[in-house]
């Protein structure tokens, strides 16, 4: 270490810089039109035995008056999902990453990777809002599908279902699969 390394002075300065950043951030957030609540709202959804917190990201501190009431989608199991697939009565939405989708997905499923797509960029105009939609993820424990289901509901789709078990359950059941980027 260099000779002039004064630990105490440096630590004090680090604390000061952090304090300045916190104070400025909080102050700006209070006066800014883009400010957000310090703690955002979320719904607690039970998926099998797991409780998943699905946050609702509010773009304004005053958005409580526009609070989106999330109604948890109906959960369906592998048999019900396969029945809908067999009848062709639902659109499947794959909320996993594009790489995972490419390596294998439920035939006909549309890729909507929830982690790297802005909700406003999801093109749902071709889908009838009354259409049955089944969202799935990797396994029962991922909350991504729930988040995507919330986005669908915000956009006016009221017949949204969540497939517990997800891609793992579908693969384990050795049902039909597709690969590549096309549904």
């Amino acid at each position, binding site marked *: 270490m*260099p000779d*002039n*390394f004064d630990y105490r002075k*440096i630590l004090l*300065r*680090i604390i*000061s*810089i*952090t304090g*300045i*950043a*916190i104070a*400025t*951030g*909080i102050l*700006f*957030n209070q006066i*800014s039109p*883009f*400010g*957000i*609540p*310090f*703690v*955002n709202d*979320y719904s607690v959804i039970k998926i099998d035995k797991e409780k998943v*917190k699905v*946050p609702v*990201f*509010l*773009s304004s501190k005053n958005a409580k008056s526009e609070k989106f009431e999330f109604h948890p989608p109906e959960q369906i199991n592998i048999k019900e999902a396969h029945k809908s697939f067999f009848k062709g009565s639902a659109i499947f939405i794959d909320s996993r*990453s*594009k*790489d*995972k989708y490419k390596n294998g997905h439920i035939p006909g499923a549309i890729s909507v*990777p929830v*982690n*790297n*797509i*802005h909700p406003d*960029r999801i093109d749902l105009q071709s889908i009838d809002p009354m259409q049955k939609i089944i969202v799935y993820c990797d396994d029962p424990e991922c909350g991504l599908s729930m988040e995507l289901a919330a986005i669908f509901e915000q956009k006016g789709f009221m017949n949204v279902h969540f497939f517990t078990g997800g891609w793992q359950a579908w693969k384990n059941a050795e049902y039909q699969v597709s690969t590549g980027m096309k549904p």
Partner: protein
Amino acid sequence: MKTRWEKILFDLIRIGLGFIFIYASIDKIFNPATFAKVIYHYRVLPVELVNLAAIIMPWLEISLGIFLIFGIWIRASAILSGLFTFFFIILMGSAMARGLNIECGCFSLNPEAALVGWRRIIEDVFMLAGFVYLVFYNGK
């Protein structure tokens, strides 16, 4: 005692890293809700703390950038910036290890901006090296 060229190199690195930090913070300061979502996607913070992190982190970046550019408390700023960068490297590595294909949230919140990946990690490693240099070769 630094030579003239060492001083020029030192100032170039200091000011360059300062500007990078300021540039990285701007989009996040004006889009905290989107940044909160990016932080949430890393799945490391409880849902309740995500917004607070989205409010504070960009201001820490911009503060450090300003301190570095103006040469104020260089060593302290470099240590804190280095820790911040190191934390991000660990975060991205963790996201990759868990198979999360997510936006980095490093410089832009544009959904078409870079995703977490090795390129981002390597860039951050170079930045970290710069901060280490500032810490050990600074006389202030």
